[in-house]
């Protein structure tokens, strides 16, 4: 027997102890601690293994393709992009194949799973999904990553405040370039629109909502506009007079509102009109609010969550100032907010949703429900009423809180589902 060849990034005993000398197709329970996670049809055999209290996805592929995907995923990790993290590559020369190991993304779901549990026809939730897809593709493209097979099935979604965060989970066809050409971006976008449309239409069929097809196709086409709006906002190079240079602030603020930190702003005279300046902004990570919240509180949360929490913190600070009759500085307000508001209420919120998701997300859901109920009532309904609504799940159907979903079951199973 020719022994397998390993490249493992976390050589834990459980992972090393898996039967790497056997083809993946022969891994079965109870010898191997497999977990049943429904995935869509895929080009290659994928199984999920529980080892050392971590869930791993293992995929059987031709060695050349596996090595390429492993390298691409490592590059995406280095660039901090939202993608599944590579954990190892095991070559099985005996079977002329390879197994790619990735760490399962906790707290993330297939789009089918998110939507199957909602009543049919949820335009607001679909909007969240499409924004997440467009946002992911923009992030990949501005880092020179060509996806090649962007689809809902190749993406996982996690909750982040009132938005969804999309994660690339299949990089088989992906390539990393220094910069993408316009043609490469356009082609990736075409693939995304077609696949997103087909993914939504397919789900509608499953939900017996085929009448929605035309609406879904039109919405999928809109993903292109969502992408382009975001791309243009990031790459705009507005020009104005030297005297109007204060307008830089507006450009930076717009980017910050979209969540992007600004690394550098360059103002350069326009070649054929030297009294005019052209602004070029070097955009950093999409963690502007997350970084600000971390600076103030030490909390490490998603950008979508941070936007909501900073809003809550600001409201708290304003109330504090009113109460005290003088200014309260940001860091004092932040410290008090964590102690008096966030800590007790995130625990309460997490309890009432049955410990689904993370406590911080449960608190974001509580804030959203409170805001929606107050809007409806025409006055602030207060936290306790919102908590009660969240507990009884009597919350608006298009609220982000409705996307709360139980964690992946980790019970072993006996038969692999063959889709």
């Amino acid at each position, binding site marked *: 027997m020719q022994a397998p060849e390993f490249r493992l990034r976390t050589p834990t005993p459980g992972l090393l102890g898996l039967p790497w000398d056997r083809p993946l197709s022969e891994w079965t329970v109870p010898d191997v601690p497999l977990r049943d996670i429904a995935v869509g*049809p895929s080009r290659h055999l994928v199984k999920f293994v529980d080892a050392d209290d971590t869930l791993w996805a293992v995929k059987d592929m031709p060695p050349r393709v596996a090595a390429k995907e492993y390298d691409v995923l490592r590059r995406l990790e280095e660039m901090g992009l939202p993608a599944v993290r590579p954990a190892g590559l095991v070559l099985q020369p005996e079977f002329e194949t390879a197994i790619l190991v990735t760490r399962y993304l906790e707290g993330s779901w297939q789009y089918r799973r998110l939507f199957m549990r909602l009543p049919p026809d949820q335009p607001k939730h679909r909007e969240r999904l499409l924004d997440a897809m467009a946002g992911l593709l923009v992030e990949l493209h501005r880092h020179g990553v060509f996806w090649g097979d962007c689809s809902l099935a190749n993406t996982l979604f996690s909750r982040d405040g009132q938005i969804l965060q999309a994660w690339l989970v299949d990089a088989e066809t992906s390539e990393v370039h220094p910069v993408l050409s316009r043609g490469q971006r*356009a082609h990736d976008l075409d693939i995304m629109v077609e696949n997103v449309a087909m993914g939504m239409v397919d789900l509608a069929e499953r939900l017996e909502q085929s009448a929605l097809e035309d609406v879904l196709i039109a919405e999928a086409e809109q993903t292109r506009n969502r992408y382009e709006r975001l791309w243009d906002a990031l790459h705009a190079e507005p020009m104005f007079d030297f005297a109007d240079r204060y307008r830089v602030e507006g450009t930076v603020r717009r980017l910050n509102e979209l969540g992007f930190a600004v690394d550098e702003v360059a103002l350069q005279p326009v070649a054929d009109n030297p009294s005019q300046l052209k602004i070029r902004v070097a955009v950093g990570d999409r963690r502007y609010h997350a970084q600000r919240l971390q600076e103030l509180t030490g909390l490490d949360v998603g950008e979508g969550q941070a936007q909501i929490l900073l809003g809550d913190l600001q409201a708290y600070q304003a109330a504090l100032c009113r109460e005290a009759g003088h200014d309260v500085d940001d860091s004092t307000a932040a410290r008090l907010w964590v102690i008096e508001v966030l800590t007790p209420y995130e625990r309460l919120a997490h309890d009432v949703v049955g410990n689904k998701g993370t406590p911080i997300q449960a608190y974001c859901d509580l804030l959203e429900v409170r805001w929606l109920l107050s809007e409806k009532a025409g006055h602030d309904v207060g936290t306790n009423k919102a908590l009660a609504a969240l507990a009884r799940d009597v919350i608006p159907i298009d609220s982000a809180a409705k996307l709360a979903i139980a964690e992946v079951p980790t019970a072993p199973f006996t038969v692999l589902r063959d889709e």
Partner: protein
Amino acid sequence: MAAITYKNASCIYEGSDKLAVDSLSLDIQDGEFVVLVGPSGSGKSTALRMLAGLEDIDEGAIEIGGKDMTGVPSKDRDIAMVFQNYALYPNKTVAENMGFALKLRGVSADERRKKVEEAAKILDLTEHLDRKPAKLSGGQRQRVAMGRAIVREPQVFCMDEPLSNLDAKLRVQTRTQIAALQRRLGTTTVYVTHDQVEAMTMGDRVAVLRFGKLQQFASPNELYDKPANAFVAGFIGSPAMNLVTLPVASDGVKIGDSTLELERDQLTKLSDLGLSEVTFGIRPEQLELTDSGGVEVVVDLVEDLGSEAYVYTHAGSGVELVARCNPRTAPKLADTVRLRRHPEGAVHLFHPETGERIN
């Protein structure tokens, strides 16, 4: 359907001082199946992507059907990238999976059904059209992916290493199907691979690239029989051609104390060029075992393939030679044997510095 012309087309990668594709000129005829082959970094994929509109044409031009494609967006070039989009949708029928791109383009239901049925007939999928994809075999799923491109009836098919993510069995099966399908449809096809066996078995003509430059564009037979330079000679053929740089003697080339004889006109060319050394090439099947004469070698390995055997040897001077022989009469490991050129065997002579073909 359309002819394709690359006219000194070049692509420069941003931040690189080297051309990814350097002044590529190719005339691809209407309906032809052309394979671009080369090692990693040869520019073959970039050349295909320039055609597909995914890479810029920085210099020169590419024409499809006589029209210059510079600046034309990918979607307006009437090409299809086959296999890139593999996703299959479990709740939709095979027919719906195949025809969905047409639906997005606003093609009527009747027209869609007609095109899907035509494609299914060619792909031998007719009986599966109304089934769900879960019931399909791996090979049938590949054919649905092909069907997606076929229903659009593009002028050109572009295929970028389409078989690389298939297992060995499916790869051979799909290879045959693609070649047969292309011949039936007659759609001009440009196919990229790093695998010279794939190139030689599929292409009407094969363009060999290296470091962004075209090395040779010819039929598989011509590439094999008359490689334009030492690179093509070594790249095409499996096992590879024996290629060694040897001193030139009055009657041939020297391997240690022995001589492999050359033809008179070959010797004349070498002498005209004033070469004291030459890169000498001979394919394994053009060498044979002999009792006397030729070159004395020691057997390092015998690869018995059943119908034929390859004998890997080295001569006293360190020169390594591979010869094909009958497996029934193959020598054994560590045997000392003699090899000579087959009486009608072709030899290939290349300039030792430029690598260009001499004979």
